[in-house]
């Protein structure tokens, strides 16, 4: 390791040495080079492909006059409310379901394997087609859902997409339908990381079922769950597909979210900067999330 002999202390090279040591931390010389080499690929990707676009994107949305124009849009306020609802319900219901299902899928058996394969389908099928399919399914006159309700239960289903709240609900449900498999897999991987000994010990001690979950499993998954929540919120903020294809932002622009409003501004009104401004107006909400995420990633790990 780093042994400094009494002789070396007075020498000027020691100062250089300590700067170097402070830079590389506890790692030995050769290990440090490895560690550096391992991060260089990502740094290169970041500098080449992320730094410029993100800065350019921030610049695009930074003109002050964009914001009064954005706020004066009559649908802006409804859009913000919709976005808040979409995020709150979409993220939390989805992740909670994913948490429960990840426990369910830990069960042994060939049936579980088949079920997991089927369960992954919504994620695998291209979202344009699934969301369009859902849009058609929900049609009030000829849609599959109402056909089914009528054929099986003799119930005349409502016009799902004609009312703001059922349409918004449909969008949220569509999003949950599409993305729960993905987060289930992540949480499933997280559960599998819990060492077998801990799980066995818990079972022997009688901490099974709900008790086992609350006292053993969830605390170990908590950090991963939180990170998933924060990331999912950030992802969902920019996701326009569900709204765009399922409800079209309608009826009468009442189910628009910031992402679809941004897309409309950017590519239909042909004002890309106004589009970026729409999503950036959510930054006041995104920044705190990002800060919490940064803290979580930085804190010293609790190692087992």
């Amino acid at each position, binding site marked *: 390791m780093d042994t400094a002999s009494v002789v070396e202390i007075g020498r000027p090279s020691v100062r250089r040495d300590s700067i170097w040591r402070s830079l590389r931390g506890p790692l030995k010389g*050769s290990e440090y*080079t*490895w560690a*550096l*080499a*391992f991060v*260089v*690929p990502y740094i*290169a*990707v970041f*500098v*080449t492909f992320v730094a410029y676009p993100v800065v350019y994107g921030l610049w695009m949305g930074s003109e002050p006059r964009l914001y009064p*124009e954005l706020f*004066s*849009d*009559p649908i802006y306020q409804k859009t913000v409310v919709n976005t808040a609802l979409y995020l709150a319900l979409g993220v939390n219901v989805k992740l909670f379901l994913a948490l429960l299902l990840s426990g369910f899928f830990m069960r042994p058996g060939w049936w579980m394997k088949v079920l997991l394969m089927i369960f992954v389908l919504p994620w695998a099928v291209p979202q344009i087609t699934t969301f369009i399919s859902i*849009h*058609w399914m929900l*049609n*009030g*006159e*000829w849609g599959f859902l109402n056909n089914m309700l009528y054929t099986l239960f003799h119930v005349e289903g409502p*016009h799902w*997409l*004609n009312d703001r709240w059922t*349409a918004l609900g449909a969008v949220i449900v569509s999003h949950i339908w599409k993305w729960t498999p993905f987060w289930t897999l992540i949480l499933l991987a997280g559960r599998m990381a819990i060492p077998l000994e801990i799980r066995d010990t818990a079972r022997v001690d009688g901490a099974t079922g709900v008790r086992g979950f609350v006292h053993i499993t969830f605390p170990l998954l908590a950090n991963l769950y939180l990170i998933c929540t924060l990331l999912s919120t950030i992802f969902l903020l920019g996701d326009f597909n569900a709204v765009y294809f399922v*409800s*079209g*932002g*309608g*009826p*009468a*622009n009442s189910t628009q979210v910031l992402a679809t409003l941004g897309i*409309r501004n*950017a*590519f*239909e*009104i*042909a004002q*890309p900067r106004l589009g970026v401004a729409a999503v950036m107006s959510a930054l006041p909400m995104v920044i705190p999330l990002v800060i919490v995420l940064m803290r979580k990633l930085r804190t010293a790990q609790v190692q087992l």
Partner: protein
Amino acid sequence: MAHLTRRSMLRGSLALAAAKTVGGPYVARAAATTAAVWFAQGFVQDEDVALRKAVADYEKQSGNKIELSIIPFAPERQKIISALTSGVVPDLVDSNPAEILQLYGWQDRWVDVSDVVESQKGQFSETALVAAQAYNNVTKKRATYGVPLRAAVVPCHIWKSLVEKAGMKIEDLPKTWDAYFDFFKKVQDNLRKQGERKVYGLGFQVTANGVDPYNLFMAFLVAYGGQDIVTRDGKLHLDDPKVKQAAIKAAAYLGGAYRDGYVPPSAINWNDADDNNAFHAKLMVMDVDGTLSTEVAIKEKHPEWYYNEIVTHGAPGYPNDNAGKPVPSIVGYTNGLIPKGAKNVTVAKEFLKYFIQPKVIGEFVELGLGRWLPVMPSLAKSPFWQNPKDPHLKGYVQQGLLGPTRPDYYVFNLAMAEVRTQHVWSMAMIDVAKEGVKPEAAIDKAFKRIGEIFAKYPMA
């Protein structure tokens, strides 16, 4: 694995990062004699085939090369906007959406192409020539930035078989505006008496999605006398009582039809494709929809529908206004545009000059099976369009080229394009249709919004 030293790892990862910049100079050098052309994909394969043929013929004749990218419709729009925003532009694009001619003309982003249009000056219809111009806010003047290639108009499509099922005759269709559309309300009433619950008389796109609601409302606005809402000088005339009355009547009729149950309830949230799906499923007796895509799409698989069951306009043709005078139709144009900063303006212009020769462009449009209209009246007299056996083409070309026409209003003032994309008229219609708002109040709200939008583009 043992051979991988840390040094080679470090070198390798840095090299990977640097490797990507090598491709640049090669691409730039090749651009000298090639022109990059972007064009929207056609609805039928024949359109693309016709375009490729025209390009190939040009290349043979001139010795220049054209890099043609045929891009699906909606993605092309995003691609064009990305190109213009980022400054890396092709040499020639089609105007997708049509109003980018005016939108980016305002920002002085197009090359003036009046010399190209001059080469066929006498051939173009007057409306086409006007629609190819835009007001440039940098030079404070109007100029011709587009070369008209093809046109589209909004006809009425009718299921003759449903009309006959209701015990009525298509020949009895009235010739005046309100009576014409009221006819279909009677058709629905009769069909309902027969127990047909799921058929509606009118397929009005009372929705805030897509371009159809705007086209629908504007057709009604013009028919009711509101054609001076924006005059040729680009000035907005919302305080004109004729305009206001016409708008109120349009909102009242269209929203009222929905409210009274003559329009499919799901129409309130239709997207661009839903009205066609619904028409196809015979959910409504008639709709007002741009181009002949409804008919062309089923021509191959169901010729009996094309020739017997679906009718364009009906026997008397496109309806007149309530006083009996012909109503000018609003025509949309596809123009060829050359962005400023394009690498090869010369070849782009040459190709355009070649493409708009009547023989070439006429063939191109006809090979599209008549979905698009030509922009030169002489071409409308061709046997293809005047074919007596075809029940749709004659009426369509009459409405869009030979009869009275007018350009869309964003040609005069680009703010109208934003009125369309913000769906201002849709909100008014839906207010009347679903929210129980009186037409006057709905139009007041709409006019207020229109005023705000127009204020963003002050013209000299």
